[in-house]
C-alpha cells in the first residue's frame, strides 16, 4: 500500500506533506504508523525523525490509530463565545470518551481544532470532510445518531 501511494509522487522532500495526507486518508484507522514512517523515510531518503517532526507539528496528522469518523470541534474564540464548550460536554456524554480518545467500537474519535473558517455558522465541527454548523446540543445528538445508524 505504501509503495503504491509513494510511487505517485517524485521522491523529493516537498512531497512529504502530500504523501502523509494520502497515507493517512487511505488508512482505515486514519493515522500514520511507524511502519509507514520507515517506508517514507527510505523512499524520500530522509531521516525518520524528520518525518516525526513534521507529523507531530501539524494538527491534521495523527500517530495514534483513530476511529472511522473523526470529529473536529472548533474551539477558537468565535465558536467559544457561541457555546462550543457546551457542545464539547454534550459530545463527551454522547460518545462516552474524553477529548483525543476513540470510542470502543472504533466509530468516532473526538478532537478539538482551531478555526475552520466557517464562523458564520458558529459553533462548528467537521466530521471527516463534512462541515456541520449552527450546532446545538439537540442537533449534535441528531447528527451522531444519524451517523451511528449508517453502519
Amino acid at each position, binding site marked *: 500500500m505504501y509503495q503504491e501511494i509513494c510511487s505517485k509522487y517524485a521522491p*523529493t*522532500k*516537498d*512531497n*512529504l*506533506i*502530500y504523501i*502523509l*495526507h494520502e497515507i493517512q486518508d487511505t488508512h482505515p484507522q486514519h493515522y500514520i504508523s511507524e511502519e509507514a514512517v520507515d517506508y517514507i523515510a527510505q523512499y524520500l531518503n530522509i531521516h525518520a525523525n*524528520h518525518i516525526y*517532526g*513534521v507529523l507531530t*507539528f*501539524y*494538527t*491534521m*496528522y495523527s500517530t495514534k490509530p483513530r476511529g472511522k469518523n473523526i470529529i473536529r470541534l472548533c*474551539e*477558537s*474564540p*468565535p465558536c*467559544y*463565545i457561541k457555546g462550543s464548550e457546551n457542545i464539547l460536554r454534550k459530545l463527551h456524554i454522547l460518545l462516552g470518551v474524553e477529548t483525543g480518545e476513540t470510542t470502543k467500537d472504533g466509530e468516532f474519535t473526538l478532537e478539538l*481544532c*482551531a*478555526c*475552520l*473558517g*466557517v*464562523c*458564520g*455558522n*458558529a459553533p462548528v465541527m*467537521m466530521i471527516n*470532510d*463534512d*462541515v*456541520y*454548523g*449552527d450546532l446545538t446540543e439537540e442537533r449534535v445528538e441528531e447528527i451522531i445518531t444519524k451517523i451511528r445508524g449508517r453502519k
Partner: protein
Amino acid sequence: MKFYRSHILIGISETSLNAGVQAFIPTLRQELAKHELTEEINILETGPLGFFGKGICVTVYPENISYSDLKLEDIPELVSEHFLKGRPVSRLLFDSATKFQPKFNYESRIVLRNSGIIDPESIDEYIGAGGYEAWEKALTQMQPAEIINEVKASGLRGRGGAGFPTGVKWTFTAPIDAPQKYIVVNADEGEPGTFKDRLIMEGDPHQLLEGIMIAARAVGATKAWIYIRGEYKLCIERLRLAIKQCKDYGIIGENIFGSGFDLDIDLKIGAGAYVCGEETALIESLEGNRGNPRWKPPFPGVKGLWQCPTVVNNVETLANVPYIIQKGAEAFKQHGTPECSGTKVYTILGDVAHPGLCEIDMGTTLRTIINEYAGGMKKGFKFKAALVGGAAGVILPDRLLDVKMDFASLNQYAAVLGSGAILVMNEHQSIVDILWSILRFFRHESCGKCAPCRNGSQMLYQLISKIKKGEGTMDDVEQMQIIAETMFNTSFCALGQSPIMAIRSAIENFKDEFIAITKK
C-alpha cells in the same frame, strides 16, 4: 445569447451545502418546468451571496430581492407567487420582520465584483465579465516594470496583515537575475473569525488566478504555488477546476499568447498550523518541513522557496491586481483614503442582526460597518465590545467604534486590519472569558521555535486561567502585560508578538471587569 426575464442566483457555499442546496436546485428546476418557466427564469449557481448563517439563500435579479433559509417545501409557493405572478413572498424574505435587505454595494466592489453574480466554475462567465483582459494587457502591452509602476502608483498594500506596499515588495524580486523565481499565494487562512479569502476563492477563483499571472509576469516568475488549508474543500475543488480551464484555454502554460512567457500554477494543501500564515514558515512547510519561521533577512523576495527569489502575497492582495491593471491606478485610488487606497473585505460575526461579508472602501468606520452593513445589533442585545482582527486582534469598546478602518488610522493596531474579522459581543459576554479563549489559542499554536513565545504563551494561559477561575489578583493582570510585552520585544515572528494586542486592549478598555473578577 438567451434572454431571461429573471435570474435566480443561488449561493453555493459550505453553509448552503450543509443546508441541502444540492437537493434544492433540481426541485426548483422541476417546479419551474412545471409552470413552463424554464425559458424565462434562469437558475445560476454562484458563490456566497454576502450573508450567511441563514441556510439556503437566493437573490433574484433584476428585482434584487433576497430570500433566506429556504426549505424544499417553500418551492411551490415561491415559484407560483414570485415567478409566475410577480409577487415576492414576504414571509420568506431575507428579513421579513424588519424588511432589511442586505447592502450588496456592488458599485464599490473590486475583489468581490463578480462574486455572487457569475458562476465561479465557468471560465466563460469570468471572461464575459471582463476577466483575463488585464492579463492579456499585462502580457502583450506592458513591460514588467510598467506593471510594477502601476501597482505602486495604485498604493495597494498587502491585505495579509502587515500592510506592506505590494508594488514595493515586487521591486525586491523583479531585478534579481535568477534561473527560477516563484510566486507563493498565502491561502492558509487561519486567523479565528476570518474567512474572507475562502469567500473570495469560492466566489471568483479566476480573479485570484489572474492576479497571480500578472504578479508572475511583473517579477519574472514562471511557477506559482497556492498554499491553501486542507479544510477548504470547496475552494480546493474550484481552484483545481479553474487552473485546468486556464490550461485548456492556453491562458497559462508554455509560450502564453505567443509571448514567450511560461507560467505554471499549482496547489499545495496545508496540514493545519496557524503559524504557516507567516511567510517564511509557509515556505518551510512548502519544502516539506515543520512550519517554523526563518530568520530574516534574507527576505523571501531575495531568498525564499528553495533559496530562490519568492514573492509571497495574500489572496485578497492578488485579487485586487487585475482591477488595477485593467482600469488603472487612478480608478483604484478613487476608493479608500489618500494613504490607504482600495477596498477591504470584512466578515462580520457574533451578535449582529445580519452576520455577513462586505467589501467597502478603506477608511469606513467600524460603527458604519456594524450598523449599516450588518443591520446593527441583534434584537434584544446591547453592544459591549468588538474583537477586530481575530486572535491577533484588539478588543474595542463602544467609544472606539468611530475609528476609521485603514492602515494609517489604526496605527498601532494596524495588523488587525488584514484579517478583516469583526466579532461583535453582547453585554452578557465576559471579556476575561474571550481573552482566555484567545490565549488558549496562542498556547496551542505557538510553534515552539523560540523561547519567549513557547514559554510566554504557556505562562499567559496559566495566568488567565487563574483569573478566569476568580483566583487571580491585579498583580497577575499586570504580570500578563509584562510577559506579553517581553514576547513582543523578543519573539522570533509575528505570532509571539501578537498576544499583547488583545491583552493590552482588553485591560485598557475593560479594566473594571478585571478588577471585579480579581476581588472575588
